[in-house]
């Protein structure tokens, strides 16, 4: 078996007296889609924030691509290829769609000040490559026609797709989506499902997903991790999770 891309052990996050995340273990193999589910307030987003460097975890170890990354600032984690979205859309609203995609490629571009001022060939090439990658992903998420529109003029579902495209142009190793289907209608959710599967199958992207839409989770996940009250409750394939009595009691039991 290959080395896991992400290996989290004993992750703990404490806010004052509150233990929001308590000993979470998580392992993501390359090329898998792993979903994290659990009731509201279970600490899923907190786990995301710890992994991506927005919070400094109180304890535990995070191995990403073979390197320890716990406590590293967010932008450095992102540069290693762990790219996330947020529960709420966080686009650069006043900037155009294509500008959003260019900003995201900042770390891969020629940012030398003089090269840009004098438009050296190397700079032009880097700029052209970035534009081409942006165009490719705009095609993939069906937003090519909106390239020069300000991002805040897009419809909600389009904004969600743009966010995923913005992640993809950074050429991530691990894509982390925080409730990507929230607020989408059933048709848009189906499109999203297709897009995520394609990312894995055609682009060999590993995906870590937080989602409440059980139909979506059960149909695309290779593995599912269930978290309840900050603690890991169960982990396994969708079928195993569906039959796990603890999970049914704590979570699915309602239906």
């Amino acid at each position, binding site marked *: 078996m290959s080395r896991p891309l992400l290996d989290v052990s004993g992750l703990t996050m404490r*806010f004052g007296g509150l233990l929001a995340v308590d000993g979470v273990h998580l392992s993501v193999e390359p090329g898998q889609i792993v979903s994290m589910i659990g009731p509201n307030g279970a600490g899923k*987003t907190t786990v995301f*924030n710890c992994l991506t460097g*927005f*919070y400094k975890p109180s304890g535990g170890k995070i191995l990403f691509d073979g390197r320890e990354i716990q406590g590293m600032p967010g932008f450095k984690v992102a540069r290693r290829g762990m790219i996330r979205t*947020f529960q709420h859309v966080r686009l650069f609203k006043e900037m155009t769609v294509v500008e959003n995609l260019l900003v995201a490629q900042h770390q891969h571009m020629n940012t030398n000040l003089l090269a840009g001022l004098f438009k050296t060939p190397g700079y032009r090439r880097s700029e052209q490559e970035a534009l081409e990658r942006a165009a490719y992903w705009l095609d993939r998420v069906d937003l090519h026609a909106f390239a020069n529109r300000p991002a805040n003029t897009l419809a909600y579902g389009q904004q969600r797709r743009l966010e995923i495209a913005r992640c993809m142009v950074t050429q991530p190793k691990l894509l982390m989506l925080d409730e990507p289907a929230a607020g989408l209608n059933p048709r848009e959710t189906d499109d999203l499902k297709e897009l995520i599967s394609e990312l894995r199958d055609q682009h060999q992207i590993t995906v870590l997903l937080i989602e409440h839409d059980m139909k979506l989770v059960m149909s695309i996940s290779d593995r599912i991790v269930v978290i309840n009250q900050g603690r890991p409750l169960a982990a396994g394939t969708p079928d195993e999770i569906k039959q796990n009595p603890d999970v049914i009691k704590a979570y699915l039991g309602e239906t």
Partner: protein
Amino acid sequence: MAMPESLYYFIQQLINGLTVGSTYALIAIGYTMVYGIIGMINFAHGEIYMIGSYIAFIVIAALAMFGIESVPLIIVAAFAISMMVTSAYGYSIERVAYRPLRGGNRLIPLISAIGMSIFLQNLVRIAQGSRDIAMPTMISGGVDIGPHEGFHATLSYMQMIIFVVTLITMFGLTLFISRSRMGRACRACAEDLKMTNLLGINTNGIIALTFVIGAALAAIAGVLLGMYYGVINPYIGFMAGLKAFTAAVLGGIGSIPGAVLGGLLLGVTEAITAGYFSSEYKDVVAFALLILILLFRPSGILGRPEVEKV
């Protein structure tokens, strides 16, 4: 003999510092209360203090023209009228320049506040002239600390009044915040403005109230400092506002005891700088202190650290 002399000198600086510091504290409360509730720096707050001073001078001059000579009466009238007028100013400013901007980008109300500050300063400059206006001393004398002959420290009656008034004001404010219905609503707003609104409390009213209270406290400081220094001009608000803001940050913005502590600390630091080094550099020290505090302990001495909401 050298030791006590330097000791009395030190005591004198301490007294002077605490005097100015307590007025900083009064102004700082206005910053801290507004910041605590709507997270905005009310840049025009220093000008409210300046207007308070002008109103006090106008009242004092008016009473003198009517031949009223009772000092306590004059002082009480100055406080009362000045507080009323500045409260109205505080309310109107919030209503006109800040309320329409609530909830957007943080920089927009701040720029509006800077504009308001420039506007008020120049309004007073045009109306009252830019020269210094001096007032004859009304309260003179004081208590000597140390030997009558030779070097000693003095606690003037005016300084005593400043301490007593500040103390009473702080006591009253604390009582109001902790005991009254309105005070409880204030604290609720500082905790979570949206939630408080959902619970059916008129948050607009509470926000206006904090502006009014802040303005009234600034007026108290304006009256006190106006009588203490005896000289005012339209530009005193800018520096005093900056100093008071520094005090609020020093103590931990959002915290009322913090504002008091910060004010006193800043006053003493300045007095000691002026007394032992050079009075020209006391402002530099105050700003340097502000920068250092923000760098190493942005939540101030008594403030709670802010958790970033992702």
